[in-house]
C-alpha cells in the first residue's frame, strides 16, 4: 500500500473524534481533515523528513483510546514533582490521579476536552495545521490536553507537571494530546511535559504544543520523553514570542522506537530571546530525530541552541537545527551547537545545522562535532586508577550532564541524570555512582 492509502486508513480511524465538541471546533477539525487528506503523511522526499521514514508507522492500525485504570503505572512512572499535576492515561485526562491544587489569581489550568470553549481563541493560533501531516492530524482529531492560561502579570511559582502515561493495550492506540500555553504580559510559568509508559506499550503519541508569549512573559518548558522502546512518538512544539519575552526549552529524548520532535520558534518583536537545550540518547534500534527552527522576524532578537547526542548499538540520531534571519532583522545573535558521541560502529548520526541569513548586521555561528572522548581526560582518570570502561562512562555522562545540569528542578534533574546513566552501556559500570 502507498502512503496515501495509509493516510485514508488513518482518516477513517479518527473520523469519530472529528465530530466531538462544539460547532466552531468541529468546523476547525473538518478543515484540518481536509488539510491532512491533501498533505498526507510525510515522505522521505521531503527535505525535513529525509532521514526519517514513517512508513513502518503508517502501516500500523490504531484505535482510539478508551478510559483505563492505571493508578499503579502512573505512580511508578511519576517524577514526583512538587506542584500542580495533571495525569493523562493514553491521552485522556484522569481527574482522580490529578491534583490541580490552589491556583493563584489570574491562572487557569483546564483539561481541554471538557473546556474546549475556553480555548477557542488559542487553539491553532500558533501551530499552523499545515506544518506537517501530523500537525494536521492532531488538529483534526486531538482527544484531550490542557489549556494553561496566564493573565497579565500572573506568576505561577510551582511547575505544572503534565504526566502522560501509555498503557500496554492489545490494539495499539492513537494518542493525540494538545497542549496550549498562553502567557499574558509579564506572566511566568514552568511547564513539564513528561511521557512514559508500560514496557509493552506500543502505541503512537502525536503531540502538538502551542505556546504564546506576550510582552515580557517568561516560560520554561521541559519535554521529557521516556516512552517504551516499542512506542512511536511524534511531537511538535510551536512558540510565538513578543517583545522582551523569554522562552527556554529543555528537550530530553530518551525513549521510543521512533521519536521525532519538531520545535518552531517565531521571534516576532525586539528583545525576544530563546534558549533551546536538547539531549538525545539512543540504544538498540531507536531512531531519534530532532528538528528545530528559529525564525528571527524582528531586529534585536537572540537565539541560543545546544543539542547533544549519544548513540549506541544500532541507533540512529538525526539533528537539524535551522536559524533564519529575515530581511531587516538586524542586530541578531544566533548561536547553535550540536555535538555527538557515537558509542558503536553500527550507530549513525545525520546532522545538519543550517543558517539562512538575509540581513547583514548579525552575529551568527553554528558548530557541529561528532567524535570521541578527549584522550587526555581519559588519561587523567586512568592515571587515578579508574579502569578504562568506567572512565569512558564517566566522561560520557559528563558530556550529557552539560545539558542535564541546566535543568533547574532538582527532582527532574536527579531522575533524568539517573535515567541517562541507566541507559548507557552496562560495561561503563556507572551503577551506584549517580
Amino acid at each position: 500500500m502507498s502512503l496515501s492509502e495509509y493516510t485514508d486508513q488513518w482518516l477513517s480511524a479518527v473520523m469519530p473524534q472529528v465530530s466531538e465538541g462544539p460547532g466552531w471546533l468541529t468546523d476547525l477539525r473538518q478543515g484540518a481533515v481536509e488539510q491532512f487528506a491533501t498533505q498526507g503523511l510525510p515522505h522521505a522526499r521531503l527535505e525535513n523528513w529525509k532521514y526519517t521514514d514513517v512508513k513502518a508507522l503508517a502501516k500500523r492500525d490504531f484505535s482510539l483510546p478508551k478510559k483505563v485504570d492505571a493508578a499503579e503505572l502512573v505512580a511508578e512512572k511519576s517524577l514526583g514533582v512538587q506542584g500542580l499535576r495533571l495525569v493523562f492515561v493514553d491521552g485522556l485526562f484522569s481527574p482522580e490521579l490529578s491534583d490541580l491544587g490552589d491556583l493563584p489569581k489570574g491562572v487557569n489550568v483546564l483539561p481541554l476536552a471538557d473546556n474546549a470553549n475556553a480555548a477557542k481563541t488559542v487553539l491553532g493560533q500558533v501551530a499552523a495545521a499545515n506544518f506537517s501531516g501530523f500537525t494536521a492530524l492532531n488538529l483534526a482529531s486531538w482527544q484531550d490536553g490542557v489549556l494553561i492560561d496566564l493573565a497579565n502579570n500572573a506568576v505561577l511559582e510551582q511547575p505544572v507537571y503534565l504526566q502522560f502515561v501509555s498503557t500496554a493495550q492489545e490494539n495499539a492506540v492513537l494518542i493525540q494530546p494538545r497542549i496550549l500555553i498562553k502567557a499574558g504580559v509579564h506572566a511566568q510559568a514552568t511547564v513539564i511535559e513528561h511521557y512514559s509508559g508500560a514496557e509493552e506499550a506500543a502505541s503512537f503519541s502525536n503531540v502538538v504544543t502551542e505556546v504564546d508569549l506576550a510582552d515580557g512573559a517568561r516560560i520554561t518548558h521541559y519535554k521529557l520523553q521516556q516512552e517504551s522502546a516499542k512506542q512511536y512518538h511524534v511531537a511538535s512544539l510551536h512558540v510565538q514570542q513578543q517583545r522582551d519575552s523569554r522562552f527556554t526549552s529543555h528537550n530530553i529524548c530518551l525513549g521510543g522506537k521512533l521519536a521525532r520532535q519538531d520545535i518552531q520558534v517565531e521571534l516576532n518583536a525586539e528583545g525576544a530571546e530563546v534558549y533551546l537545550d536538547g539531549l538525545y540518547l539512543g540504544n538498540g534500534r531507536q531512531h531519534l530525530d530532532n528538528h528545530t527552527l528559529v525564525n528571527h522576524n524582528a531586529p534585536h532578537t537572540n537565539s541560543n541552541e545546544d543539542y547533544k547526542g549519544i548513540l549506541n548499538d544500532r541507533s540512529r540520531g538525526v539533528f537539524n537545527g535551522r536559524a533564519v534571519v529575515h530581511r531587516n532583522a538586524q542586530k541578531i545573535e544566533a548561536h547553535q551547537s550540536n555535538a555527538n558521541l557515537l558509542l558503536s560502529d553500527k550507530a549513525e548520526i545525520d546532522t545538519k545545522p543550517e543558517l539562512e541569513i538575509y540581513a547583514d548586521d548579525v552575529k551568527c555561528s553554528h558548530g557541529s562535532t561528532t567524535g570521541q572522548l578527549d584522550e587526555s581526560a581519559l588519561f587523567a582518570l586512568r592515571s587515578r586508577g579508574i579502569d578504562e570502561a568506567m572512565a569512558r562512562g564517566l566522561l560520557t555522562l559528563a558530556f550529557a550532564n552539560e545539558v542535564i545540569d541546566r535543568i533547574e528542578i532538582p527532582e527532574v534533574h536527579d531522575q533524568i541524570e539517573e535515567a541517562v546513566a541507566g541507559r548507557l552501556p552496562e560495561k561503563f559500570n556507572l551503577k551506584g555512582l549517580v
Partner: protein
Amino acid sequence: MASQEMEQLVRREYKQGFVTDIETEMVPPGLNEDVIRFISAKKDEPQWMLDWRLAAFEQWKQMEHPEWAHVNFPEVDFQAISYYAAPKSSEDKPKSLDEVDPKLLETYEKLGIPLHERAALAGVAMDMVFDSVSVTTTFKEKLGEAGVIFCSISEAIREHPELVKKYLGSVVPVTDNFYAALNCAVFSDGSFVYVPKGVKCPMELSTYFRINAENTGQFERTLIVCEEGAQVSYLEGCTAPMRDENQLHAAVVELVALENADIKYSTVQNWYPGDEEGKGGIYNFVTKRGECRGDNSKISWTQVETGSAVTWKYPSCVLKGKNSVGEFYSVAVTNNMQQADTGTKMIHVGEGTRSTIISKGISAGRSDQSYRGLVKVLPGAKGARNFTQCDSLLIGDQCGAHTFPYQEIANSTAQVEHEATTSKIGEDQLFYCRQRGISEEDAVNMIVNGFCKDVFKELPMEFAVEAEALLNVSLEGAVG
C-alpha cells in the same frame, strides 16, 4: 559606511565584456539525436562514443530538472540552445602560436592573458578552449618527453580510446544528475590529462575557457587520470564576454587518483554574472568529482568563484583508498543579483581517510549565496577525519548568506567537526584601519583579502595574484 556611498560603490562594470567577431560554425538551436550525431561526426568520433552519447541522451530525457538548490531562475529551454559552435579556422589547426587567428590572440590579450609571455615565464602549457574546439596546445613536446598526455578530449577519444573508455564516466556516471547526463550527450570538447606511473608532471597545466558565440551552450568535459605515484597540478580559468541572453554552461570534470597519486585542481571562474538587474549572465551548472582510488592518494580542489548569474557546483571527493586525502578550498563572491549554491561532498569510504573543507563566502548587493556540503562517513571508514569551516561575510543589507552542511556519520571512530560563522565586516576592524590612516576602501579590501587568505594561499602563485585582483574587481563598488 553610509548606505548611499555603499550603493554607489556596488556599481561596477564587467571589464571583460566584449564580443570578438569571428565567424563561427554552429548548428541551429535545438536538441535531438541528429544534433548529437552531428557533434559526434564533427569530432570524428568512433561508433562507441556516439552510442555512449545517445544512451546518455535517452537517460537525460527520463530525468527531471533538479529543484533542491537555493537558487531561482527562469526555466531553461533546452530547445533554444545551440549545442555546437567552433571557430571557423578549426579545419586546418594551427601548429604554433604564429598560425593562430590574430583576432583570437587579441581576445586573450584583452583578457590580460599574454599567452606566449605567460607560457614562457610561468612555464605553463595551455590547452585553450575557445568556444568548443581546442585551438592551440603549447609545450606538448616537453610533456610528451615526460610521457604526460595533455590534449583535448576529442583528440584523446581518437588517439587514446582505451584510456578514455576505461575512465570516462567512471567517476561521474551518466545518470548522476540531470546536467551531467546532458553533458554526456552533447559535450563538445574539453581537456584530457594522463600522467603515467611515477611521473611528476614537469609543469602546471592550464586551460582557459571562454564562451564566445552568442546563444551557445558550453559543455566541457574534463578527465584527469593520475597513475600510481603520479602528480599533476591543473589550472582552469574562465571569463566570458557581456551579452543579454542567458547562457548555459554544464561541465563535467572527472579526476582519478591511483595509489600515492596527487591531483591539484584549481579554478578561477569569472563568467559574465549579468548586469545590476540580473539580466544576462551565465548559468553555471557543473559536476566536478574526484575519486581517490588508491591508498595514500590525494585530491585537492581550490576554487575562486566570482562570476556567473547562477552557480550550482559541488566539487567532490570520493575517498576510497586507505589514508587518502580530500581537500576543498573555496572563495565565492556574489554581487548584484548573482546566486550561488556551492560547496562540496566528501565521501569517506576507506580507513584513515582525511578531508578538509575551507569555504569563504562573500555576499554583496542583492545576491544570494549558499554553502551546501555533505560529509559522509561510511561504516568502514575507521578513523576518518574531517574538518570543515565555512565563513560568510555580508556586505549590505539586501544580500543573503546561507549554510546547509549535511553530515552523515556511521563510524564511531570518525571525528567530524564543522564550524560556521556569518557576520559583516567588524566596525572595530574598520576603525582600527581607519585610525591608522588607511582609506575606507583600502581597509575593506584588506579585510576581505585577509578573510580569504586561507584559500588564496592554496592557489598556485601566478593564480593567487590574479585571484586577488579578481576579488577586488568583483567587489569593486561593494567594498572598495
